[in-house]
């Protein structure tokens, strides 16, 4: 059923509270009952199934594409290729460089070439197998360095460099008595949301339009791209959010949307497309693999004088958000530390690897892994503790970034570090309690020797931008209707599991004095809410809901003011009543005041404008920042290369805890993903092919991998945030990765410069 709410949700809504309360999810009942409709669960009698034919090669010319044999299979209703795309043949969030279907050249393994619709998934499989594709193999570009040095011919008309961006700041010749240098490498991480890609497209009669029910992060971003490719006006394409089983950036780009709509329009029948897990690995973008070099110059007491850095991000075959990911990486190169001089160069490049784009942390994960490795080297070189070197350099509100941007947000970096440091270390002895082999690194099956196990402690601290950057106006829209004591909210904010639906109800309840807050269907019949990404929805869509509710409250006060012949300025909400502050005995319940009255307001929330970066990387390009610190404790068997993360302590700058239960959920979930990147998660690439596109070979953290988490929520309301609250989604997964790697280094005394840390990195 997804959204809107059912009666059971409304009942829960009555029990629950206001901003600051640990309110439980309005969709909780449906989700625990198995009644919540994920995109793969939508009922539709007579719907056809769609499936996608994908490239087998990382780089090849399509010499011949013959779909006629597939038409001979009974049950096949449509076969479409690039020739059948009526509108724009390409799409993309920033540059429209990715074909809906490859026509002349394929640029990565898994690139769509054709799609079919048929009566049954099995018929689809047979049809795909019958389509003839003859390839002329071309040399794949799989080494991103060759994209930078120009030694490989362009693999796309737009060239092999997606973006080059430098950041030059202060005196490039500045130096200090201490210089530390390091090279860092990060593998390709997958978002691995559990709910596989799925969509259902319903064509309008005569093919005049289409309605797409889909699990996505960004309703209107999808809409713009889909409509352009379908060659339809935007008002003829309607998106409805189906239940989303997690996203983490992996649903920011299109995957099956255009294919599903095209098949529905071609057949005039409803069409559903579901990916399996292997196809999901091929069908969505991943986190950018990176190689990073950094050199820090510092005073002998450990204060940073200058940073030099070089970033190389492998964007894969198409641009996706690579240019924005690069900007995040280079502009966060200094970390949450004061630095007046910088020479930073970065490239995001095109290769014949799978396309990479958004994943939780978005470029800052890569930068943080490098700058935190550097801080530990600096600490060692200056004889300081990891904590002390970070405290000495911690930035504050008013400090200037290497882009020239002044930090105007609350910036409690020092407090993040101190509060993390104050959290107790684990009382669990090295190797775990008692003789339980499950507590050993590697668990019972990998036979770590208790006598060999060493413990290490490591630190990571991060700064993360929130909202979109470089002049992008990623506004959000919300409507509030107050009628008969019930508030109804409407927005296009993609609920992907993060809990915005809960926050939205809390805001309305708090501002309007109502218990019952209904949520209208999440679709594109209202203005854009932007994407559920960049830690932005609490701020942006929370801001829009807040603004709409405040306007409705003004209307309510005007209405009651007229009833009482009183100046509305005297009126306030107390509990569930409108009260006259001058004569507090005079009060009316909101329910009575709005009986038979409908007050409706729509609001658009915009954040303050940002600037593009100039060619030297100068400009106030980011909207706002949040900060976080992590301390990791690990046990390592250095001979077998096994790691057990024992404890993570964290303090996070969250502004205000609108819903503490939900905040903790984000912190713990983010820590799990950062742990995965640190010690297990990697899409293993070989010659442009993914070697482990399954959950048997792409390892995700389990119940047994998850360490104890101690969290301190730092609540310093940010006056720039509409609710005082910062986004909490991304910071948890950013500095936990370098903290774990630092802890492993501390345990074994070996320089580790690559994540995920593999057994051979530890023991060989």
């Amino acid at each position, binding site marked *: 059923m997804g959204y809107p709410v059912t009666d*059971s949700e409304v009942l829960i809504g009555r029990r629950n509270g206001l901003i600051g309360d*640990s309110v*439980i*999810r309005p*969709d*909780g*009942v449906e*989700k*625990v*009952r*198995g*009644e*919540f*409709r*994920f995109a*793969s*669960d939508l*009922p539709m009698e007579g719907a056809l199934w769609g499936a996608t034919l994908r490239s087998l090669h990382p780089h090849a010319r399509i010499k011949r594409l013959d779909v006629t044999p597939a038409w001979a299979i009974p049950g096949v209703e449509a076969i479409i290729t690039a020739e059948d795309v009526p509108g724009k043949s390409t799409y993309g969030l920033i540059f429209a460089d990715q074909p809906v279907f490859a026509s002349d050249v394929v640029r990565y393994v898994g690139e769509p070439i054709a799609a079919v619709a048929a009566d049954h998934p099995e018929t689809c499989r047979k049809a795909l197998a019958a389509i003839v594709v003859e390839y002329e193999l071309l040399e794949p570009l799989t080494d991103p360095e060759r994209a930078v040095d120009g030694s490989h011919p362009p693999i796309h008309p737009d060239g092999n460099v997606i973006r080059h961006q430098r950041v030059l700041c202060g005196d490039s010749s500045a130096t200090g008595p201490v210089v530390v240098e390091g090279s860092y490498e990060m593998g390709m991480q997958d978002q*691995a*949301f*559990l*709910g*596989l890609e799925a969509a259902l497209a319903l064509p309008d009669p005569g093919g005049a339009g289409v309605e797409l029910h889909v699990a996505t992060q960004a309703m209107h971003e999808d809409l713009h791209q889909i409509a352009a490719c379908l060659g339809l006006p935007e008002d003829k394409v309607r998106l409805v959010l189906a*239940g*989303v*089983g*997690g996203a*983490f950036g992996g649903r920011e780009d299109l995957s099956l949307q255009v294919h599903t709509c095209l098949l529905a329009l071609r057949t005039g029948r409803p069409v559903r497309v579901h990916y*399996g*897990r*292997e196809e999901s690995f091929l069908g969505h973008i991943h986190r950018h693999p990176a190689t990073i070099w950094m050199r820090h110059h510092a005073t002998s007491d450990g204060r940073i004088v200058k940073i030099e850095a070089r970033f190389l991000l492998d964007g894969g075959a198409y641009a996706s958000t690579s240019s924005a990911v690069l900007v995040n990486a280079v502009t966060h190169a200094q970390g949450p530390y004061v630095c007046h001089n910088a020479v930073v160069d970065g490239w995001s490049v095109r290769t014949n690897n799978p396309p990479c784009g958004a994943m939780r942390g978005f470029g800052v994960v890569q930068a943080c892994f490098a700058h935190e490795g550097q801080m530990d080297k600096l600490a060692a070189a200056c004889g300081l503790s990891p904590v002390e070197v970070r405290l000495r350099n911690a930035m504050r509100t008013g400090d200037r970034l290497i882009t020239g941007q002044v930090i105007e947000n609350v910036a409690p970096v020092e407090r993040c570090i101190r509060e993390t440091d104050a959290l107790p270390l684990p009382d669990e002895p090295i190797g775990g309690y008692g003789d*339980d082999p*499950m507590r050993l690194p590697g668990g019972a099956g990998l036979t770590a020797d208790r006598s060999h196990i060493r413990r290490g402690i490591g630190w990571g601290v991060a700064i993360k931008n929130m909202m979109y950057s470089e002049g992008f106006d990623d506004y959000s829209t919300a409507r509030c209707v107050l009628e008969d004591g019930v508030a109804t909210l409407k927005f296009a904010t993609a609920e*992907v*599991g*993060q*809990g915005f639906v809960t926050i939205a109800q809390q805001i309305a309840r708090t501002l309007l004095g109502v218990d019952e807050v209904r949520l209208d269907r999440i679709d594109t019949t209202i203005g854009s809410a932007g994407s559920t990404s960049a830690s932005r929805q609490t701020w942006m869509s929370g801001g829009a809901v807040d603004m709409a509710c405040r306007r409705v409250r003004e209307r309510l006060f005007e209405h009651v003011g007229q009833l009482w012949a009183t100046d509305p300025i005297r009126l306030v909400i107390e509990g569930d009543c409108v009260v006259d502050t001058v004569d507090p005995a005079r009060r009316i319940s909101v329910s009575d005041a709005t009986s038979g009255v409908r007050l409706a307001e729509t609001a658009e929330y915009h954040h303050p404008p940002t600037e593009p970066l100039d060619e030297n990387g100068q400009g106030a390009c980011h909207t706002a920042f949040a900060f976080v610190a992590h301390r990791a404790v690990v046990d390592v068997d250095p001979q077998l290369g096994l790691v057990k993360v024992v404890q993570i302590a964290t303090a996070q700058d969250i502004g205000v805890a609108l819903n503490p*239960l*939900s905040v*903790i*959920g984000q*912190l*713990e*979930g*983010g*820590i*799990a*993903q950062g742990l995965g990147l640190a010690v297990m998660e990697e899409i293993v690439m070989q010659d442009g092919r993914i070697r482990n596109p*399954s*959950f*048997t070979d792409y390892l*995700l953290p*389990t*119940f*047994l991998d*998850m360490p104890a*988490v101690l969290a301190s929520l730092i609540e310093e309301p940010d006056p720039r945030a509409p609710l005082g609250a910062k986004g909490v989604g991304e910071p948890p997964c950013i500095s936990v990765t370098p903290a774990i790697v630092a802890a492993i280094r501390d345990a074994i005394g070996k320089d580790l410069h690559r994540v995920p840390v593999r057994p051979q990195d530890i023991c060989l």
Partner: protein
Amino acid sequence: MMHGLRKWGMMTSVISEISALVGHVLSGGYTVQITVNVNGTAQTSDVEPRQLLVHYVRETLGLTGTNVGCDTSSCGACTLHVNGQSTKSCTMLAVQADGQSVTTIEGIAKGDELHPMQKAFMENHGLQCGYCTPGMVMAAIGILDENPKPTEDEVRVALEGNLCRCTGYHNIVKSILACANG
């Protein structure tokens, strides 16, 4: 002797059944009638012998609360109960459930009254996107059936085969312990 002959007879009949089955399957469209007690109701359906239990539940019966997350029996999103035992329904064929009793996530609440485990997950924020939740809840009920007062470590070991990508697991453990102690 008699015993041996009977065994041989059974084997030949099994072999002829298998070859007949293979022939039917290869020619397509071969189905078997099964009757499964699902959530307390006997359901009789014609299913292909190769159909997985999870697809029978989702597609034949339309009970979509049981989710598919991986295709490789790694994630546990499809966990349900077969004769009271928690089972990944992608590891069984529908025909193997013939004559058995299956309980899915849709079958554990009593009308509007949630099962205590469902309530515990909701109240302890043991879910975010909710995709793993039906499998987690069913697996968790299975744990408490065998071990009504588990320790935290016992819960973690027992649920190692169920993946969650949103929560970091702690609130799921809390939910189960709250239910056990509730």
